[in-house]
């Protein structure tokens, strides 16, 4: 399964109402950090789980859900996390 597919699967624990994952790796190919082969991704996720959580807490929830993928497969990640009320 692609990294994106695995991310999507792992993020189901947050019960997202919507989840958009953009693979931005091509824009970064060749720079130093990209040599390890890890991808650059941009996640936009809407979940009721973010209710009452500040930004740092929301990002930690996403990082925790992605777990070991953060070690190697994902080199860089931008996160935009919203509750359903915020969109």
């Amino acid at each position, binding site marked *: 399964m692609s990294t994106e597919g695995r991310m999507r699967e792992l993020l189901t624990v947050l019960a997202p109402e919507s989840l958009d994952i953009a693979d931005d790796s091509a824009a*970064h190919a060749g720079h*130093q*950090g990209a040599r390890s082969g890890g991808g650059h991704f941009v996640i936009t996720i809407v979940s009721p789980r973010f209710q009452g959580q500040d*930004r*740092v807490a929301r*990002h*930690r929830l996403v*990082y925790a859900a992605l777990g070991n993928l*953060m*070690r190697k497969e994902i080199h*860089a*990640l*931008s*996160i*935009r996390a919203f509750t359903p009320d915020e969109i």
Partner: protein
Amino acid sequence: MSVQDTIRQQVTGHRVVLYMKGTPDFPQCGFSANAVRILQMCGVQDIFAVNVLEEPEIRQGIKEYANWPTIPQLYVNGEFVGGSDILTEMFQNGELQKVLKKAA
């Protein structure tokens, strides 16, 4: 001294601490460059920057310290503020300027 102690000393010993890849003059990652640019736009003159590419133990240790798996990481008066996305958002809505002012 353990790595965690070193980090604690760095973040509490300086007002604004940025763990980054590269240096403020020569950032080696777009996210780190973004963090430096934002701090400069906020008028911060006294960034205490730690280049994690030259300090592998800190690079690993800082992820555990804040329970945050990515770099850059900004600390103000010893408090973890966030990474590149969070700094961008806080800068755009004026929160970061307030945090920095309060810490002046």
